[in-house]
């Protein structure tokens, strides 16, 4: 069906190109397919707006009270890596870098660990930016009551 009219590659060269390209493309598509199946369970990022307004709390959560200063912003963790969190806030996503010095306070106000900062968790963050707001370095993170 296909008439070979494009010059330059010999049939042998073309066969090799088809083979290498086909293997590469198949590998990429398999990897994407696997990621699409594996990804959604950990990748969904519901916004803060998805929470029911009727669940408003008027008291100050203990974790917030444990912060040494008022939080700079709050939101929901939409992505998490060992070194950074992406937090969906009301005015857009923020990337927050975390390190060994970052203090984490859980719902009851006691100190938690990095493992408490899982996806979909609501957090309030005390942070400073060193690059004009592209990323923030968190000094304290309070886990908000669900």
């Amino acid at each position, binding site marked *: *069906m296909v008439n070979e009219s494009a010059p330059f590659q010999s049939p042998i060269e073309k066969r090799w190109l088809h083979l290498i390209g*086909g293997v590469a493309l198949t590998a990429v598509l398999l990897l994407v397919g696997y990621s699409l199946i594996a*990804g959604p369970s950990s990748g969904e990022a519901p916004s803060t707006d998805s929470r029911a307004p009727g669940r408003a*709390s008027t008291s100050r959560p203990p974790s917030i009270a444990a912060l040494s200063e008022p*939080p700079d912003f709050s939101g929901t963790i939409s992505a998490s890596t060992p070194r950074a969190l992406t937090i969906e806030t*009301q*005015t857009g996503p923020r990337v927050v870098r975390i390190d060994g010095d970052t203090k984490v306070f859980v719902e009851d106000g006691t100190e938690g660990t990095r493992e408490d900062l899982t996806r979909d968790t609501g957090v309030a963050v005390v942070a400073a930016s060193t690059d004009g*707001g592209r990323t923030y370095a968190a000094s304290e993170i309070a886990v908000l009551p669900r």
Partner: protein
Amino acid sequence: MDRKSRVNVEVAIAGGVFVVSLVVYLLTLTPSLSYNSIDGNELATVPSQLGLLHQTGYPVYTWVGKVFSLLPFGDVAYRANLLSAVSAAGTVALISSLVVLLGRGSARIEGLTTVPRDVALYGSAVFAALLLAFSVTFWSQAVIAELYAPNTFLLGLALILLLLWARHEESMGGRDATDAKSVRLFGGFALVYGLSMGTHLSNLAFAPGFIFYILLTNRFFLLQPRLLAAGLVGFGLGLLQFVWLPLKAGDSTDAVSSVRPDDLSGVYDYTLGAFPQFRWAYPLSDMPERIYFYASFVIANFYLPGVLLAIAGAWAMLWRHPKAFFLLMGAYLPHVVFFMEYNVVDLEVFFLPSHLIVAVVAGYGLWTALELGLVQAQRLPSPFPVRSPLSVNGEGVRGWGLPAIAALLILALPVYSVVDRWDENDESRNTGINDFYELAFERLPEGAILSGGSGVTSYDLFYYPIVEDLRPDIIIPTLPGRDDRDGTGTASGPAYAVTSGFLGRTPSFAGADRALWQVPVLASPTVSFDPRGGRRLTLYRGQTEAPQLLVTNPSPLVRIDEPVGGLTLLGYDIDAHEVEAGGSVHLRLYWTGAFNNLYSVSTQIGDAPYFENHDFGFGNLNRYLTTVRPVAPGDALVEEYDLVVLSSLDAGEHRFRIRTVSATAGASEWLDIGTIMVRD
């Protein structure tokens, strides 16, 4: 169709998609400054002064931006937005030419005559061009001042020149065929590719694809000194633009970076060594998740049918034009992998060069599908007794059904995208920043010290003194070029501050007692419903005495007494129910409930997709409750400030509504609390 006619048709198609996309971009163009990009306002400001942009410097963008800043209409920020629109439309035109060039270089499917083959190819070229034109991310960058549209234009041009060179090489037949035209085309490609480093250095990731393609086109390339020299000289000339960096090192306005490109090591740190904290941020185990996020971006831009066409197109290209497959995949994969490992908030825009390739490959996929469909169609009986312009093998009669289906396939997705994404990308009413600063600079007292942030995110403020030369009597300690960034060396004028940074953070007052109370003066609807866009914009006055934050048993002029999230809006005072567009209304909101600093308050006038947002109590709440007095029975919290009314609102009556957002409970429903009559 002879060669000349074909060229005419192809130019007409490129011109047609250029005009269509440019019209849409102009209809949705941001009128001036915006918060839709972190550094967009810097990009609207610095080129007009021929200054030095943040890392990686972007000399070519600076120079082209300067040319556009000289246009005789709109303000300078509008002209910078126009640069994006024109270069985005230019990219769209180049995409159509790319698809045609790739089609012409592909192996033919037997059984089709030239006319239906050409029609299918031209239709697919239109499809690919418009698919990219109205994809959500590309469109969003075409209506604001940003680097990405000029960058895709240069990359598209480099790809075209490379394909033209290869076509010429092939037509000459091999090793000894290199002639002056070949040298010119290859040198042109190398020059444009080098220049494109001045719109984004990440274009280097396209190099593996280019190298594959060059060697597959001419395996003796490295043995041909003329070609090699043309490539090196062209690319080197393109890179010469970076001499601009040391020349302008003293002008660096990027306060977030301590790097100064004033020597070779500084130039390296400012360019190739820039942003190490963003790169390779994710471990290998995160790759499935990163791929998932990337796939989500692609589907959001091209929808599932577009992505499926791109996958089909990749296979078809591998079969019909393997060299082009290696060119595009060799450019696409390194680029995508690099940015999947990049950790910034505005990640989606970094994928635009790879989106360009996805659109081209999707067009290729549609072309192959159309050709296969046309071949099959000649075996079917005609559904309609009408002659079709798409005659197959000269037989002619196949009805209008097939071309109708083809036209539907070609136009359905781009048209759907325009309708689906219009509201999201329509920035034509985004006037909140300009309205705010016009009023703010008008109202600031003589000799005021206006504190703000520094660095690329503060050019919403810097634009006015730098470009518009507005109110030179106002001292802005963080203004690029000033040495006393903390304001300690300035005169003791009245202290004011404006929110700054990506978050719109509450400021501190430079050079003054940091314990000043921050009294809100003016706030603007600059936060967008689009999660990408917007941030707070509020002007504060610093004063030593505490504002009256709590009042007992107030009687607001407009009584509401309705819950708004966890708070209750008792009512509000307003100085006028009728206001000129671009003016402001004076508000006093009265709140009851359990007060804490976990709330923010949003107000909105009219149906423009922007609202004003501030922390409950404008950042004074905790301090007031602990140092002035606690809440007593019957107390209401008062928020008093001027609210900007967007100049983009049409004359007429507009709803006025309010909501709160709690850190623990999310956003409340909007509550309609009245109407405001807006005059022209």
